[in-house]
């Protein structure tokens, strides 16, 4: 993707962000010019409101899923189950909140733990049973929603508990709480990968699994950890989504969000084949997707039509990353010198 030839800077947090940021900037520029009021910000009751705040607020679940997905994809895998895991974790939270006397911190811990457990299951299938990641996570993707419905007995659950509602709707320091949560998770993920050796191992396993194994890296542990972490992220995203709409419908929560998360990772410059990853790239990718959607709302495009530009974005990014496409492009340029 990026020509790193003869570059001798350390790979910093901004490395490789040029393309995703350029895409996002272009989109914002379009809105600045053509969409009146897009950049309008307003302080009401000490809370920020406006399209931009809306983008980062509603983009939070995809940012959070995307962070976990980034690590999974960097090892050369994929996690299709995150949407379903969100449903399970959200359901657990909504169920527990209705139980009188259940302590709130325990509730949060329980739903995050359920998400992590689901991730461990995926990790178990991928590492110990050596099932391909696409297939392994498909199992939970298909069955997960059933489990969630089983927990709720198929009912939609509504709740009013202020603490749980705050998770998805509250404001802190003028910002929506989900935004702060995704920032915190970004920090946590960065810490987890860059302040331990995990990031190095993930990148080496994704880039060259054989050589990593020969250098003594335990590819098994690394893969297991990333699936578990992806499950944790799905749990957190599920909490936010559930809290946001103050109810849980196991059939709807996080539906097709796994695809958005994968898209965010790919747009953010992490290759599907694994290797170098960029957490900030994923964040920018997620915001790009959300901005695209918000822009279309601003232009009164029906939400149902919104997937079309998303599809075009995927194809464009894929082609730009495809060596075969670049070869052809180069051959074409040589053939027609101008």
């Amino acid at each position, binding site marked *: 993707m990026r020509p790193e030839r003869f570059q001798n800077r350390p790979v910093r947090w901004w490395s490789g962000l040029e393309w995703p940021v350029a895409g996002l900037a272009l989109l914002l520029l379009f809105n600045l010019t053509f969409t009146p009021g897009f950049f309008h910000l307003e302080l009401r009751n000490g809370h920020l409101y406006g399209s931009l705040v809306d983008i980062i607020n509603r983009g939070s679940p995809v940012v959070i899923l995307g962070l976990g997905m980034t690590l999974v994809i960097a090892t050369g895998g994929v996690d299709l189950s995150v949407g379903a895991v969100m449903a399970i974790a959200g359901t657990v939270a909504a169920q527990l909140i209705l139980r009188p006397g259940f302590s709130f911190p325990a509730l949060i811990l329980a739903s995050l733990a359920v998400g992590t457990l689901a991730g461990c299951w995926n990790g178990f299938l991928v590492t110990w049973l050596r099932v391909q990641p696409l297939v392994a996570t*498909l199992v*939970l993707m298909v*069955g997960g929603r*059933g489990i969630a419905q089983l927990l709720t007995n198929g009912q939609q659950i509504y709740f009013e508990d202020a603490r749980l509602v705050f998770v998805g709707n509250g404001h802190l320091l003028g910002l929506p709480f989900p935004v702060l949560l995704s920032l915190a998770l970004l920090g946590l993920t960065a810490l987890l990968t860059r302040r331990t050796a995990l990031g190095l191992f993930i990148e080496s396993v994704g880039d060259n699994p054989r050589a990593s194994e020969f250098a003594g890296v335990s590819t098994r542990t690394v893969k297991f950890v990333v699936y578990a972490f992806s499950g944790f992220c799905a749990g957190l995203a599920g909490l936010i989504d559930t809290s946001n709409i103050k109810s849980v419908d196991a059939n709807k929560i996080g539906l097709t969000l796994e695809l958005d998360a994968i898209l965010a990772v790919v747009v953010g410059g992490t290759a599907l084949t694994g290797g170098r990853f960029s957490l900030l790239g994923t964040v920018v990718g997620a915001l790009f997707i959300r901005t695209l959607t918000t822009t279309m709302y601003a232009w009164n495009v029906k939400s*149902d039509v919104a997937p079309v530009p998303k599809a075009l974005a995927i194809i464009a990014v*894929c082609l730009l990353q495809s060596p075969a496409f670049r070869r052809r492009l180069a051959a074409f340029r040589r053939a027609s010198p101008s």
Partner: protein
Amino acid sequence: MKPPRLNSQYIPLVATGVVLAVLYVTGGCLFPNFFSLRVLVNLFGGNAVLGVAAIGATFVILSGGIDLSVGAVIGFTSILIATLVEEHHVAPLLAISLALLLGTGFGAGMGALIQRFELPPFLVTLAGMFLARGLAFVVRPDNLGIHHPFYAEGINHSLALQLDSRVSWPFAATCFVALFLVALVLAHYTRLGRNIYALGGDETSARLMGLPVARTKIATYTIGGFCSALAGVVYTFTTQNGDPAACVGKELEAIAAVVIGGTLLSGGVGFVAGTGMGVLILGLIQTLITYQNLNSWWTVIVVGLLLLLFILLQNVVSALSGRLDNTARHG
């Protein structure tokens, strides 16, 4: 020469058959009228859309690929036909042909992208899914019933087979069975079909054996696109309706049916017949759960468990039938 011994490849297929038989007999034992003609007919009619889609998915998966656009193409096709027939007064057969042509071309386009630019099938068909779903809503944002006489009379009555006074075999089921037979022949009795198996078995070898790998790959996704579109047509037959939001997630059901039918998700091994049984298994699970008055979510849980079971079974089988000696050879 003696008949071929039962080799490990057939184990999943036999397992599928056993599961199907067990489910059917269990239903018959538990519920008095389970063995009735009506239940059987409903099994085929009610799962015709899934069946048609799953047959397309079988070819794609056999070739070592995956197609996530199935459900979206069904939605697009159904609303396209409904709109053309009801609002633009196009002859139904013409509308159906057009829809089939578009769906087939759509599959071919995805195949060409995957083949020519070496893009991952997963992402290309994901984009295809977004595109088809979005376009479906562009055609018409809400659903539309089809009341044209061809549908009201032709599909419902003239083309349905009256089996006895109360049970009739719907045309949708006929489509499913017909496609199933065509697919059997295509998979087992044509060079294209055999090349698809070879491609999924080992792409490098297939290339070195001089097989037309590029053409086969594109053809596979073309078949997939055609089947998705046909599933959309069948959808309009069964529901008399076009719906841009139809069949969200149908691709997962289709993949599940294929895997439960004994096809290896990594490609190269599998059976169209297995997929047929896989579809009936999914249908039977649904029927049983309805009969048992169990809640609908049990369906997905059971399907998920079956999926897991078959994936593990496949793992064991491929460990058994892997090349006998593949220790690394170095200088």
